[in-house]
């Protein structure tokens, strides 16, 4: 498999009146073409900032983003602009990401105009992309308010794939949708990936959705990657206590399993001026003295997994 995206030590810091916020702190990962990497974590863990830094909608402070062999930081703005058509993004809320004053043909046609398409050829192409997301050409002249949430998200996806990108960043694409519609949109995304060989960076806080969509998963806590590996391995045997806690917090649809719900104590602390140790230590039931003293680095555990923890679970302790 060819590597589509290679991220090394990506960091984004914000200087505020109250101190330094490390929104994304030395995050590294790789994504292959046609595969899905999910980024999970609670609000404020940096998953959306990571997406913005990848797209250079915010300028990263450190680290490199290599897309199809080209280092985004090393090229000029003009070239980066041309490269950007290969990356696209779908946002969480289709009620705010579509301009209410534009017709569907102009919303989906806007990226196509930037590459010089005009007139009947443009609308033909728009109709083609709408068909790909399951919308007919009778919708071309409609406005966003005439559509339901699921249909709006389809329009946003049609716009995102208009320039035939190689990588799609999906920032909580179904969080604003109802379950029955969520299933339709997830199935559509899976189908598009199969047909076009798209790579997906799938940002989500819903672990069940992640399991149904992704090949690999990156778990973030307060700007740092704490565990990364294949979905199959991580969901079977989480090694970082935080990953385990996240999985134990998801309420099961089986009433017989209701006592399995084990909430983590406390809440995500303020990202300002974090202590030197492991950021999760204050909430971690397994924290020891060394966790507070120093910050664990991401280290390989087995062939497919990296974990940032001094005392990770092992196959035996998980039982």
């Amino acid at each position, binding site marked *: 498999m060819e590597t589509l995206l290679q991220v090394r030590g990506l960091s984004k810091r914000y200087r505020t009146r109250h101190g330094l916020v490390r929104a994304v702190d030395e995050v590294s990962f790789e994504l292959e073409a046609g595969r899905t990497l999910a980024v999970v974590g609670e609000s404020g863990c940096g998953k959306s900032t990571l997406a913005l830094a990848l797209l250079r909608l915010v300028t990263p402070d450190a680290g490199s983003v290599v897309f199809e062999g080209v280092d985004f930081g090393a090229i000029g703005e003009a070239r980066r602009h041309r490269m950007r058509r290969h990356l696209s993004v779908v946002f969480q809320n289709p009620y705010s990401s579509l301009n209410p004053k534009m017709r569907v043909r102009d919303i989906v046609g806007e990226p196509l105009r930037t590459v010089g398409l005009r007139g009947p050829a443009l609308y033909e192409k728009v109709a083609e992309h709408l068909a790909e997301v399951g919308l007919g050409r009778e919708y071309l002249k409609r406005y966003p308010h005439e559509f*339901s949430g699921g249909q709006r998200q389809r329009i946003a996806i049609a716009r995102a794939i208009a320039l035939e990108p190689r990588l799609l960043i999906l920032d909580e694409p179904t969080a604003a949708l109802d379950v*029955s519609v969520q*299933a339709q949109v997830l199935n559509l995304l899976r189908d598009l990936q199969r047909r076009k060989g798209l790579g997906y960076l799938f940002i989500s806080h819903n672990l069940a959705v992640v399991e149904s969509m992704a090949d690999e998963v990156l778990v973030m806590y307060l700007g740092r990657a704490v565990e990364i590996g294949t979905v199959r391995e991580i*969901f079977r045997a989480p090694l970082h206590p935080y990953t385990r806690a996240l999985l134990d917090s998801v309420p099961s649809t089986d009433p017989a*399993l209701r006592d399995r719900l084990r909430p983590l104590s406390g809440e995500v602390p303020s990202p300002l001026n974090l202590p030197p140790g492991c950021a999760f230590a204050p909430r971690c039931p397994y924290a020891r003295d060394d966790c507070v003293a120093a910050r664990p680095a991401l280290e390989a555990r087995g062939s497919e997994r990296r974990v940032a923890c001094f005392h990770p679970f092992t196959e035996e302790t998980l039982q």
Partner: protein
Amino acid sequence: MNTAVLSVRGLRVEFPGLGYTVQAVRDCDLEVGAGEVLGLVGESGCGKSVTALACLGLVPAPGHASGSIKLCGHEVIGNTERALGELRGGTAAMIFQNPNAALNPFFTVGHQLTHPIRLHRGLRRAAARAAAVEALQAVRLSDPELALDRYPHQLSGGQLQRVMIAMAIASRPRLLIADEPTTALDVTVQAQIIVLLRELAASTGLTVLFITHDLGVVATLCDRVAVMYAGTVVEQGPVGAVIGSPAHPYTGKLLGAVPKIGQGRGELASIPGQVPNLAAPPSGCAFHPRCERASSSCEQQRPAPHAVEGPHLAACHHPLAPTAAAAGAR
């Protein structure tokens, strides 16, 4: 569960508009027994929140509610504002999805928390403050004394939702109506709130009407569940029975559409079409245009709820067979 704390009979809520009337709730029947946690589940626009608001006589104008809603024996519909004022907060309290929007940013938590306590329990300032501290301890907020002097923006979403629950239970209501209180929270905090509500229900005998779209939350928290579709309850019963062996095809499909941990990767069952427009709801059974089991009778005649087994009711002409339904949900 012999006495019903809340009893809703034939509730209809209509919102007149220009040229059309939206029938947000259409003949909804519900009952919540003392000490019971009932989950009211459904997709957006199914009328679950409007039903909750109607229970406190809070349907926003120009909406109009008809039918009967009895709160501990007191009729809500058509009652005077004065009588409703006593029911609200005193007999039944409500918490909302977004605690940030429910609290006034200009007043301290203590100010907002002691006000209803003084009103409903007739306590003096100092006694009300002590009661507020007690309520905050009951919802396991760390440093209750400190929290009372804070403004809402100084607390996190999870802490604020705890404050809201404390405010609701401080005046010792019989019924707590919770409208998606965990939807805006992170999973770890949601789990904390679920456990808290479970403990409160068990220790104080609090009756809860819990509105949500999340079937996982229902399965983990509730004793009974009522599934709403297009303004009406299509299925209700004990959580184990309804989720383990759904009788209404909508419930079955909804369960199939929820991604579940441990299910692995793969296609999800989705429900074709969309939720109907309640300005012009489909004839007969509202689910028939999206239902593969629909026949001509579904199109013409609205099914009445009938017993599937014991307290498990479903409103469907062609309910799923117990075994097939259990298999379909997995």
